[in-house]
């Protein structure tokens, strides 16, 4: 479902003398349907950079990133928009929403964007919020005022409300208590069981051991220093 080949990335800092910083070279991995692959490596090794490239948030310098039928590395913006809407879900560590929009609407939005009937979208959002132990009295409020753990669970609800065939998870269990961590791990296991391909970063080692089928160490994708 996800196939990355010979992927490279560099940043050019025009306002710092045009310095070119190569950050990745020769990256390759695959994630099949029903499989969860965890990215490992120390901070700064490029785990998040790789995830962002798969999401189309960072441009690739070379190589290919196939998600389903689409090569994200060369796709048009509108193709990536359609991919994100229908195929590729994303749970980031940051919640970016329009202020003042109620939590229930924030979670239902991915379904509304897919043309799901509004009532059904809200019911599915409510079921997921309930499962993630977000108290019903908070649903009419904007999540921007929530605690870190609550915001993360809203983000997770948004990422799981539609049955995306592929999912990117950036530390989905960080800052969660044991009960909510268990709910999230169950959601991941259910997604795998229905055939979703999952690529994730898990610093929580026990979680990683439980849901990941394989690990890929991104230090292998660090560009070799020029001799």
């Amino acid at each position, binding site marked *: 479902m996800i196939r990355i080949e010979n992927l490279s990335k560099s940043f050019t800092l025009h306002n710092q003398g045009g310095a070119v910083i190569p950050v990745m070279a020769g990256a390759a991995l695959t994630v099949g349907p029903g499989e969860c692959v965890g990215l490992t490596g120390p901070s700064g090794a490029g785990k998040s950079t790789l995830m962002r490239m798969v999401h*189309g948030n960072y441009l690739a310098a070379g190589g290919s990133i196939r998600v389903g039928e689409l090569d994200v590395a060369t796709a048009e913006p509108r193709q990536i928009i359609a991919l994100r809407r229908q195929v590729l879900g994303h749970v980031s560590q940051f919640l970016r929403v329009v202020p003042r929009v109620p939590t229930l609407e924030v979670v239902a939005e991915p379904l509304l964007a897919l*043309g799901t009937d509004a009532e059904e979208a809200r019911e599915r959002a409510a079921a997921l919020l309930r499962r993630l132990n977000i108290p019903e009295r908070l649903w009419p409020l904007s999540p921007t005022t929530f605690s870190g753990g609550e915001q993360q669970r809203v983000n997770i609800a948004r990422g799981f409300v539609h049955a995306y065939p592929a999912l990117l998870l950036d530390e989905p269990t960080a800052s969660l208590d044991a009960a909510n961590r268990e709910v999230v791990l169950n959601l991941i296991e259910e997604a795998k069981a229905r055939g979703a391909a999952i690529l994730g970063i898990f610093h929580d080692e026990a979680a990683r051991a439980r849901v990941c089928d394989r690990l890929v160490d991104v230090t292998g994708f660090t560009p070799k220093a020029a001799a």
Partner: protein
Amino acid sequence: MTLMERMAMTDQPLLRVEGLTKRYGQRIGCAEVSFDLYPGEVLGIVGESGSGKSTLLSCLAGHQRADLGRIVYDGRDVLAMPETERRRLSRTDWAYVHQNPRDGLRMGVSAGGNVGERLMAVGARHYGEIRGKAADWLARVEIAADRIDDRPSAFSGGMQQRLQIARNLVTGPRLVFMDEPTGGLDVSVQARLLDLLRGLVRDLGLSVIIVTHDLAVVRLLAHRLMVMKSGRVVEQGLTDQVLDDPQHAYTQLLVSSVLQV
């Protein structure tokens, strides 16, 4: 057929712009601007004052005549069509939301009249239907029904802007031009307007071109982003990609200059 299915089927751009150029004597207003806009897409145009973004918008909307280039709307060459046909287009298929609601509203006419007037301009004559539709649109932009006979001069800035949006959208346009629509508003009012615009774009499948200098607004509203400097497009792409991984020196400067809150 759902809206999404219809949108997925439309592989033709609603608007195609090729090499659009406008000069003021020796000075460049905008130069060689090209892009496609598809149904349901929101395109943000950012850049500092004098970058040509407002000139571009007014050329696209037909408020100014471009010197060179082509604008093809729904298969029709806009710059080649007779003036009457172009005017008809801007009354029916297109809408233009001004930064200052006073430029887009008639301040001496009631809120309901402001919305109804645009309907009458496209041939609506039945008073009851016009008033009913105006009331419906005032509700959609969250203006209380008991304000329908009030003049916009009695409204707050945020309400005036929502009224301007209702006046523009009542005729069911497919393409909406917006010039800094959240410009003069308090941040809390801005948030409400952003939420409203997002909902309308999603539910009506509108295509929108929005000019702004506010990067936070485009991040939340625009699918795609075009960055302008000195009349030229220096970079364009997926909004979050352009903001998070800017390629051009000017975009890097623009993004790194935003104050964090």
